[in-house]
C-alpha cells in the first residue's frame, strides 16, 4: 500500500500573529506591521513584534548561540512539538529538516570591525555557532530528543519549503514515520538590508510603509523583507491515525529543480521553475485543474513576478485557480518564507478564507485570477511555490484535511 504523509502539528511566528485566531483576525481586519526601520528610512520591513524565545523554551543557555533567525526556528519547532502532543520518547526516531539562511547581521555581531580585525575581548569562545546554519537544528534536537535522519537545507528562499519536501519524501519512501520540518529566518539587520539593497532587489521609495509590498502590480518596486518561523510535524498517515493525531492536511506532492542559469535572476523562459511545479503535480497525481489556490512566491520584484505570471499562464491554461501572494502580508521571510506561507495557507484552508493580494491595483497580467478581495472560499488543494537566489525552485502540494 502506498504510504501517505499528513501534517499533524503546526506552528507559526509571524508579524500577523502567532496563532490561528490572531492570524485570521489580522487577515480580516487587514492588520499588518510594515514600517521603516530606524537605521534606514529608504526601505520598509515587516518585523515580528513581541517575540521572546524563552516564552517557548524556558531558560535556554544555548540561546547565546542563536541568531534571530535561528531563534525563530527553535521557538516555532518547540511550539509545533507542543501542538503535536508528542513526548520526548515519541520523537527519538523522528527526523528533523530545517531550512536556514546565513546570519547577515555582520555589523551587529562585530561592531568594531576595522581592517578585517574582528578579535575583541568579549567575543564568545564559540561565536562560530552564531554563523553555522545547523545551529538551530542542533538546539532543536537537544531540546526535543530527536535522533533520526536530518538535514539542514540552505537553498536561499526555497530552503524551508524544500526542507518540508525532503521530510515528506523520507516518510513517503519509508525511511521515517515521523519528522519535524520547517524553518526560521530574519535579515532585518543593517547587514541584511545592505546586502539586498546592494543587489537592487528591495523596495525603495517614499510610499506609506504598508503600501510598499505590492506583488504582481505594475508599479511594484522590489521586495519588502520580513522575518519569522514556522514548523510542522509530518507523519505517515496510518501511524498518525493510530495515535489519534489531529490532521491539518496531507502533503501530496513535491518538486524541486535548479535553473542552472544566473546567480540571482530567474531563468527567463521559466522552463525549470515549471519543472518543479509539474513534478509536484505528477507526484500528487493531480492535473493543474485540480489546484484551487496557488500561493505564489510573489516577491514584488520586477523579474520574479513577471516570470511567475508566465509560469501560471503556462501551466494553468484555462484552469483559473485563485492566486494569492502572502508576502504582501508578512514581507519576504527569506529562507523561512516557504514554511510560513504553508502555515498561512493551511490556516486559510481551515478557515475557508482567502486573503487578497494587498496593494494590487494594476495587475501585471489581466488574464490571471489574482485575488483582489479577501473572501470566504472553501478550497481543497493548494500549491505553495518558492523560488530562490541561485536558481532554486520548489513546489509543494497540500490537500485539505477533510479529504484525507
Amino acid at each position, binding site marked *: 500500500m502506498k504510504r501517505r504523509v499528513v501534517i499533524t502539528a503546526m506552528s507559526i511566528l509571524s508579524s500577523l500573529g502567532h496563532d490561528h485566531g490572531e492570524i485570521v483576525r489580522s487577515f480580516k481586519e487587514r492588520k499588518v506591521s510594515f514600517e521603516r526601520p530606524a537605521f534606514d528610512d529608504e526601505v520598509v520591513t515587516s518585523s515580528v513584534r513581541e517575540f521572546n524565545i524563552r516564552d517557548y523554551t524556558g531558560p535556554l*543557555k544555548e540561546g547565546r548561540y542563536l541568531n534571530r533567525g535561528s531563534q525563530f526556528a527553535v521557538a516555532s519547532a518547540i511550539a509545533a512539538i507542543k501542538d503535536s502532543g508528542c513526548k520526548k520518547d515519541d520523537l527519538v526516531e523522528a527526523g528533523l529538516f530545517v531550512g536556514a539562511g546565513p546570519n547577515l547581521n555582520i555589523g551587529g555581531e562585530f561592531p568594531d570591525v576595522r581592517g578585517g580585525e574582528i578579535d575583541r*575581548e568579549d*567575543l564568545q*569562545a564559540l561565536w562560530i555557532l552564531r554563523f553555522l546554519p545547523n545551529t538551530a537544528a542542533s538546539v532543536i534536537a537537544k531540546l526535543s530528543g530527536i535522533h533520526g535522519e536530518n538535514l539542514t537545507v540552505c537553498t536561499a528562499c526555497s530552503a524551508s519549503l524544500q526542507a518540508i519536501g525532503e521530510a515528506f519524501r523520507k516518510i513517503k519512501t519509508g525511511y521515517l514515520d515521523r519528522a519535524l520540518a520547517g524553518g526560521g529566518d530574519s535579515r532585518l539587520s543593517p547587514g541584511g538590508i545592505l546586502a539586498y539593497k546592494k543587489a537592487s532587489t528591495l523596495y525603495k521609495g517614499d510610499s506609506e510603509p504598508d503600501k510598499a509590498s505590492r506583488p504582481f502590480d505594475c508599479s511594484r518596486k522590489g521586495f519588502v523583507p520580513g522575518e519569522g518561523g514556522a514548523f510542522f510535524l509530518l507523519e505517515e498517515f496510518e501511524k498518525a491515525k493510530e495515535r489519534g493525531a489531529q490532521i491539518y492536511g496531507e502533503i501530496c506532492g513535491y518538486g524541486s529543480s535548479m535553473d542552472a542559469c544566473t546567480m540571482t535572476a530567474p531563468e527567463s523562459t521559466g522552463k525549470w521553475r515549471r519543472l518543479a511545479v509539474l513534478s509536484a503535480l505528477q507526484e500528487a497525481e493531480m492535473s493543474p485543474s485540480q489546484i484551487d489556490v496557488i500561493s505564489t512566491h510573489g516577491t514584488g520584484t520586477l523579474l520574479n513576478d513577471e516570470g511567475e505570471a508566465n509560469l501560471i499562464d503556462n501551466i494553468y491554461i484555462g484552469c483559473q485557480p485563485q492566486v494569492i501572494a502572502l508576502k504582501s502580508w508578512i514581507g519576504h521571510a527569506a529562507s523561512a518564507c516557504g514554511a510560513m506561507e504553508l502555515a498561512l495557507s493551511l490556516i486559510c484552508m481551515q478557515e475557508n478564507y482567502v486573503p487578497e493580494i494587498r496593494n494590487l491595483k494594476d495587475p501585471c497580467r489581466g488574464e490571471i485570477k489574482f485575488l483582489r478581495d479577501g473572501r470566504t472560499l472553501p478550497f481543497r488543494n493548494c500549491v505553495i511555490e518558492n523560488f530562490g537566489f541561485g536558481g532554486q525552485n520548489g513546489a509543494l502540494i497540500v490537500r485539505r484535511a477533510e479529504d484525507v
Partner: protein
Amino acid sequence: MDVFAELKKIIEELMDIKDRNITPETLLIQDLGAESIDLLELAVTINSRFKIAVRDDEIFLTRFRLYSAEAKQQGEDTMHYIAGKYPFLAKDRIADIMAHIKEGPQLKIKDLISYVTYRSQWV
C-alpha cells in the same frame, strides 16, 4: 571589585539562570549543569571582565585527577604535588577536593574566586 558578585553575574548570564541560590559553595558542574562549552565561554568571559590571563586547565582544575595519579606514580606527596600545580588553592581546599572527588567534579565557585584573586595579583 567584589569578585564573587561579578562571577555570580557572569554565571547567571551565561547559564541563563535567575533566582538560583548561588553561593561560593555552589558546584558548577554538578549543581548548575555546566557543560564543557559553558566552561569554555566562562574562561573567555573571566579573561575579558577581570583582565587576567586564564588557563582553562588551571581555573577549572581539569587535571586534578591526573596530577593526583602522577604524584602517586612518582612517589611524591599528593597534597604537595597538587599545591605546586594549583598554587591558588589553599591546602584544606585541596584536601576537601581529594576527599570528595569520587562523587563527581568538585569545581566550586569559590575555586574560581581563588583563581581570579590569585591571578589579579600578578597583573
